[in-house]
């Protein structure tokens, strides 16, 4: 479904990605693990066209999308639940969700998708007229996920969806991701909760200083010394 080949990304002179390659098959959960500043978000933003890589190739559903602007990438079915949630604080909850469905691919079915999202997150339904900025952190994360679903994506890239959330809310986020997976969604998951994300994922990649240093099945990574020492503190 998604193929990333030898991607390089620079911010000025600083290299954030160095020959990164990865794949995600249809219906797979693929975890990306790495310390702060390893380049996880940069990788996701490059796939999404929010950052322009200087070398390498990104293909999605067989189309070469390298260098495409983000709205065209979305239109092809790539969803993004971004770091920091990136909701629209002064727009109402409902308007935030509508903004997720401005894509041509999602406009027609908006009413039906909205019902599905509201059923998945009843809290959002209760607060539909409220300004999104007044929601709690957990509710804002639900909104970010719901807004992404409004675009009817075929693959979702989650960037630290449980950051700053309470344990109950974190569980809720993982529950939603598992449910999406069971519905056949392809998922790229960046999580600071390494144990939980590798348990959930079929495969994973370990990113250090912009390079993939290790890849394998979720279980293999959990068992590897490198992951146990650097990320699980065992």
């Amino acid at each position, binding site marked *: 479904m998604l193929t990333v080949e030898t991607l390089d990304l620079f911010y000025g002179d600083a290299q954030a990605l160095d020959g990164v390659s990865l794949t995600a098959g249809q219906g797979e959960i693929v975890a990306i693990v790495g310390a702060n500043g390893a380049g996880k978000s940069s990788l996701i933003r490059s796939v*999404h066209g929010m950052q322009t890589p200087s070398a390498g190739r990104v293909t999605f559903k067989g189309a070469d999308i390298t260098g495409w602007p983000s*709205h065209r990438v*979305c239109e092809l079915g790539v969803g993004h639940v971004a770091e920091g949630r990136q909701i629209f604080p002064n727009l109402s909850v409902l308007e935030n969700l509508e*903004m997720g469905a401005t894509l041509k691919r999602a406009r027609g079915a908006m009413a039906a998708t909205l019902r599905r999202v509201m059923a998945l997150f009843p809290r959002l339904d209760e607060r539909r007229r409220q300004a999104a900025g007044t929601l709690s952190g957990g509710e804002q994360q639900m909104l970010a996920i719901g807004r992404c679903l409004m675009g009817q994506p075929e693959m979702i890239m989650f960037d630290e969806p449980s950051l700053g959330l309470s344990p109950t809310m974190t569980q809720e986020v993982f529950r939603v991701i598992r449910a999406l997976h069971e519905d056949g969604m392809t998922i790229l998951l960046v999580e600071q909760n390494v144990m939980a994300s590798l348990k959930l994922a079929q495969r994973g990649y370990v990113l250090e200083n912009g390079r993939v240093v290790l890849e394998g099945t979720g279980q293999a990574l959990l068992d590897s010394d490198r992951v146990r020492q650097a990320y699980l503190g065992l």
Partner: protein
Amino acid sequence: MLTDIVQATIMGLLTGMVYGLMALGLSVIFGVMRVVNFAHGEMMVVGMYLAWLLFERAGIDPLLAVPLVAAALFAAGYGLQRGLINPFINVAEHMQFMLLLALSIIIVNLCLLIAGPDTHGVQVDYMFDSYALGPFTFDAVRVYAALAAMAIAFLLYLFFTRTRIGKSIRAAADNHTGALVVGLDVPRLYALTFGVGAACVGAAGALMILVVQAQPFLAIDYTLLAFVIVIVGGLGSMPGALAGGLLIGVSESLAGLLIQPSLKSVFSFGLLILVLLLRPQGLFTRRG
């Protein structure tokens, strides 16, 4: 005397509604893109000249010319943003300033070239009509211009709250990264915003020609006036721009009555300085 004051206040409110529409254009452009349109008064004057031309050459009443002028300014604003301003969106502010200043000088000189330095007004047949209400009289032209300005402001409100594109523009203003994340075509939305802002000020110009004669050098006055209104009302706030327009309209009108017409802008600038000193976020914004 009291009658005179009330009368002047009403006149000021009517003119202020057109000022409000003009300032709304500036506020929309700034609120969404953080670009200060230093050519705003120039666009106003272009709107006045277009309405005058349509009246002189085709006999179209300025009130009916408003949609045409607004459409022309929309197209110009859209094209201008796409071609000229967009590459400057993320550069230092002084470079944006130079660009828009250059643009304003070009516009004024084109107006001079085409229409000359003389003033041009329109003689509509209801020019001297007025409505009487008790001891007060309202010039018909001012009443029509004010009502049209309010109607346009209301349409703008509907655009921003009811339409997909209007909401998308608000979303892009609210969170630029968020807009990219959900797949909004932000450069296109910016171009539309500049078009909408230009259409507002163009429409305000077409209405203003009913009460003021067009002249190229009015442009700088209107640019300053729009800034004063937007700062008094609160940067980027649409209701603030309208309320600021009314306030400045009234202050000009009262200054003209109580002091001297030629000193009317002293009042407005005095108000500006007071607001900057005491309430720099603007009079009509809730949050600082």
